[in-house]
Structures are given as structure tokens and as C-alpha cells.
């Protein structure tokens, strides 16, 4: 069952110029993307800076003015404000941000920060509210004395956990996590990712996990979409994307992930440079004449790639053959 269905979503930012400051052009930050998030899964949205992944995330939460297309939740298009209100959408869908310091109000205590969504949606008595906040702190592994502290008194990892606690306060169905661990150290990152997984297991939450870090995405996500210049170039399961990538852009991203295998260093580098060469040389094959990705074509029930039909099938067959040989 899909919790969210995104259909041909477009977010274009206007460029104003000229004497009357009229809209003369548009930047297509998100340029017609479609994908579905199933209930209880973690869906990975991967792309480099400027790919439009954060804009997509904000559109799903309702923080972005959508140009066209729809985002269906319980069969209703939540790009319309009245539908969001009617469905209590902002209670069911929450967000975790990358920068935990600037996304938490520095002048509010942790108690007030976590209770804020509760106050907006649940109208609990003072005691019940406090009890809930304490429960939430417990879920993310923070002590009760955190209640009366301010955000700057916590480390980055603790603040990110506070952000998680705030996001889960209203028992949301979906959490949009925009680069939730990018600013964290490795050991702290592990802690936050574990919390996110545990909360998912306990509460059946779905995540839209937005990240540029393919290593983290592989760990967290069952299904993944790769975004490039406002469009999706490839979607598929974890296995599809990591073991059978078809689009050159996906291959290029994967090849650029640093490997911890020191012995394979030279080989890894050679393969990265080889992929980069193909990427540079064959732009015309993989992108249309405007330099944009083609529409997605399904090569298997789970796996789609943005290529002309014939080429997509050809590549998919070659990949199947390669795997059979291996």
C-alpha cells in the first residue's frame, strides 16, 4: 500500500527581470517527477547539491509552492492547502532537518520544542503533555533533565535526536528526513540512524530519506530514486540501484563513493575514471538535446531508468547476461 504517491511533480522558481520585474524565466528545480512511497518503508532520494531533492522533500511536507502535478495522500491531493487541513496532514507528516542547531528555536527549552507539535494538534493537559515529552525523550535516549535545557547545550547528535523526538511526537505516518546525518560524526551518525530504524519498527513510520551519501542510503533504504537536474534518472530497489545500475549518472555516483578497501584502491580509481569518461563522452546518449533526463522506462517490475526504450532494454539485457556469467 502506498502512503504517498507523487505524480509528475513540478516546482519551478520564477526568475524576475526587466523594467516591471515580471517573471521572464523559470528555474525548474523539480521538473516532473513521479514515485510512490509504501507504508512502513524507507524511500531513498539521492542526488547531488542542486538536484532538486530538498525541494521535493519540502513539497511533500507542504512547505513548497508546487507549480503542477500532485502528491496524493489517502487519495487526496495535498498540494492543495484545504486538503492538507482537512486530512490533518501536517500532523501525519513531519520533517527532520540537516542542521539541527538552526532548525531548533534557540530561545525555547527542549520541553517546549518537543511539545510544540503536540500543542498544535493534540490539546493535552499539562501533566499528560509532560508525560508524553518524557516518553519521547526516553525513546531517543535522552534524560529527563534535558527538559529544561536549551538547544545549544547539546551536542550535534543529541540535537538531531531531539529533532527526531519532535518529529515523532504526533505519531506521524511519514517523516521526511532531509540529510539527517550529514553534519554528524561517524559514531554519532550510527546512533541516530539506529534510532530512526528503531522508531520505524516500533511505530510503523515511513521515511522519505533524502541524502547525498550513498553509503548511508544503502544502509537505510529499501527503494531508491536517483535525482539529477530536477528529474529522476533511475528508480529501483536497493539491489537494482547498487548492483545493477543502468544510467550513467547512477554509475558515476556509485563510482565516486570512496571505498574503504585499500587493496582495491587502484582498481576502484581506474573504474571511476572509466565511468567518468563515458559520462563525459556520451552525454548525448544518456540525456536529451536539452541536457535533461529522458522519461523513465520500466525494465523490470521494480526497476526503471530514464533512457530511450530501446537503449534501456538493451542495457538491462546486457546487465542480466553479465550477472549470469558472474
Amino acid at each position, binding site marked *: 500500500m502506498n502512503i504517498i504517491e507523487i505524480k509528475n511533480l513540478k516546482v519551478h522558481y520564477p526568475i524576475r527581470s526587466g523594467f516591471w520585474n515580471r517573471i521572464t524565466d523559470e528555474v525548474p528545480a523539480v521538473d516532473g517527477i513521479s514515485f510512490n512511497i509504501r507504508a512502513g518503508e524507507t524511500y531513498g532520494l539521492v542526488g547531488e547539491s542542486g538536484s532538486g531533492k530538498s525541494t521535493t522533500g519540502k513539497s511533500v511536507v507542504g512547505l513548497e509552492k508546487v507549480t503542477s502535478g500532485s502528491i496524493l495522500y489517502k487519495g487526496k491531493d495535498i498540494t492543495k492547502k484545504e486538503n492538507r487541513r482537512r486530512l490533518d496532514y501536517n500532523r501525519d507528516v513531519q520533517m527532520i532537518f540537516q542542521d539541527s542547531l538552526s532548525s531548533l528555536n534557540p530561545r525555547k527549552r527542549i520541553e517546549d520544542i518537543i511539545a510544540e507539535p503536540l500543542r498544535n494538534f493534540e490539546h493535552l493537559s499539562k501533566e499528560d503533555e509532560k508525560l508524553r515529552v518524557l516518553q519521547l525523550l526516553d525513546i531517543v535516549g535522552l534524560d529527563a533533565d534535558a527538559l529544561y535545557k536549551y538547544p545549544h547545550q547539546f551536542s550535534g547528535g543529541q540535537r538531531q535526536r531531539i529533532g527526531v523526538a519532535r518529529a515523532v511526537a504526533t505519531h506521524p505516518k511519514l517523516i521526511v528526513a532531509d540529510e539527517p546525518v550529514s553534519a554528524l560524526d*561517524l559514531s554519532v551518525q550510527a546512533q541516530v540512524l539506529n534510532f530512526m530504524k528503531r522508531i520505524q519498527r516500533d511505530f510503523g513510520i515511513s521515511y522519505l530519506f533524502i541524502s547525498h551519501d550513498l553509503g548511508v542510503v544503502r*544502509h*537505510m533504504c529499501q527503494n531508491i530514486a536517483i535525482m539529477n537536474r530536477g528529474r529522476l534518472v533511475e528508480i529501483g530497489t536497493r539491489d537494482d540501484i547498487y548492483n545493477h545500475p543502468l544510467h550513467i549518472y547512477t554509475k558515476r*555516483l556509485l563510482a*565516486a*563513493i*570512496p*571505498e574503504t578497501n*585499500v587493496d582495491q584502491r587502484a582498481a576502484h*580509481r581506474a573504474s571511476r575514471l572509466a565511468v567518468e569518461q563515458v559520462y563525459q563522452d556520451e552525454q548525448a546518449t544518456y540525456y536529451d538535446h536539452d541536457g535533461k533526463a529522458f522519461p523513465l522506462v520500466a525494465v523490470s517490475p521494480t526497476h526503471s531508468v530514464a533512457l530511450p526504450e530501446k537503449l534501456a532494454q538493451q542495457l538491462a539485457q546486457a546487465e542480466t547476461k553479465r550477472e549470469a556469467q558472474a
Partner: protein
Amino acid sequence: MTNTSDFLDIKDVSTAFKIDGHFYDAISHINLQVHHDEILAIVGESGCGKSTLATTIMGLHDPHETRISGEIDFEGTNLLALDDAGFNRFRGAKIGMIFQDPLSALNPLKRIDDQISEVLDYHTTLSSDEKHHRVLELLDQVGIVNPARTARQFPHELSGGMRQRVIIAIAIACKPDLIIADEPTTALDVTIQAQILDVLRAIQKENHAGIILITHDLGVVAETADRVAVMYAGQIVEQGSAEQIFNQPQHPYTRSLLRSMPQRDDENDDLYVIRGNVPSLQKMPQTGDRFAPRIPWIPADAHEAQPTMHQVAPGHEVRCTCYQHFYFPDRTTKGRVAK
């Protein structure tokens, strides 16, 4: 120029910061050598002192707010004995530095060519024509496609990757023997990161420079470094060749760190989490093993009272004896494990 000579010898260096009137060690008793023609990675998490070490070598600390002891022998000169004017003969000329955030590291109001030729102004006697020529040559060397155009641009007109290339061009303008790169790719996309690391490697080969690469990213280290020093809480806890560190890690911290990375084959497991937190500078214990509180299941007598470095293989050193007794609580294998 011999390839194996230590041209940078850091001897027992400590740097203390003044906090509320007291001095606290951010790095303590660091011993480290850098050779020509190598990339030495210093890896550790935020607050471990890796950047402090870099800025100490560069002499960038305010002498009123810091207290530095020890000796940094650079090609026969003790850098720590120099005054600011003396240091300026080395900075930019023989030691170049690359910074993390390429946008804020460039002056927003100056054109790229002015910012690069500024370093030539102070360390060369080139004419302004020659300087201009050198600037274009440098921009070309760091892989900028249209040097003449980029030279006349302002930092905000460039992409993040191009800005970092400009920073590298500044650092290598005078062909320094030592380049210190402090998190040079942290602010960049992975594909750009790979390109920047390629540029660094190429420059190191071309100039026979020694590079100190400071990073928190183990992947970057594994791809780039010849040797690795792992830092925890202001100390070096392990150092060795990249192969030694990644294939036979010894220190509990190194092993824990490697295990907390998301791996290919444990997608459905929880990640390994190191217990507890790094103590703040003010609360740093002055005796005993600083990592001991984070591995409480290891008996106290496994640690040394005053941990020292122990050689486990040629060029491979580990702090404290606890590595011999370390095991992960969720795994039964004790002692050293080969990967």
C-alpha cells in the same frame, strides 16, 4: 630531495586553549613525521584536535589565547620558535594550506586572480606580467577549463568545486614542500570530491610535496592516504600505513570507528555505536587511557596508567596495551582480529 627523509618532524607538541582563564590541552604530546612524496591522513571525529594540529603547524593561533609547547622541525627550522614575521616566510611559500569551506575561505570582494597573486606578491619577485601568467598556469594545473575567464571572476560566481580548485591553486602557488589540507572535500559533492582528491594526488606527485590530509571521512582516507594517524581526544591513538590501519586495525577506537560505518552486508542490522561521549576539553582526564571510559567491559588492568605508543609492526604503532585485550561486546572473538 630524498623520498624518505622526514622534512617535518613534530616532537611532543601540545596546544592548549584558554577557556575562562585556564589553559586546556586541545592536543597533547603529538609526535608525528611527514615525508616527502607522501600523503599522511590524520583522521578523527570533530573535537579530536586534528584541525588544531594543522593550525599549530601553520602558526595560525593567537598567542594570547593559546599555549604551545614542543618542537616542530621543518627542514631544519623549529617553526614554534619563530615570530610572526619569521613564520610568514614559510606560510604560503614552503607550507600551503587548503581549507574546508571554499566559499568563506575566499575574500568575497576580490577577484580570483588578485587572491592568487597575493601569495606571489609576498614570496616571489615576479613582475606583474609574470604573476598573471603564473596565475593562469596554476588555474590550469588545478583543472579549471577557462583560466582567463575564471581569473577575472569573483568567488560567488564560481561553483563549490571550482572555488576549492582556486584554494588549491593558492596553496600550491609557490610550490610548497608541505601542503596541509583540512577537510578539503567535506563541503563538496562526492563526484566533485573525487576530482579534487585526484588534483591533490597529481600535485603531490608533480611537486614531490608531502601532504597532510585532515579528514573525518574514512573512505577518503582509504582512497587517498599512504599513511594514517588516528586521533582521539587530542592524542594520536594509532598510526601506520593505510593497509595496516584498514586491514589490521589494532586500537579499540580505530576498530570501533571502522565498524560504525554502514557496510555493504549489514543492511538490516543496527550499526555499531561507540558508547558514551568524548569528554570536553575541561573534563579531559590527564592520566590513564582516554578511551577507557568508552569500552567499560574491558578490565581496568588491561590499560596502562600512562599509555605509550607500542610498535606492533614496522611503522605501525598503537597507544596503550588495551588493544591486546579488546573485543566487541557483541562478538566473542577476543584480541586482534584480521579482516
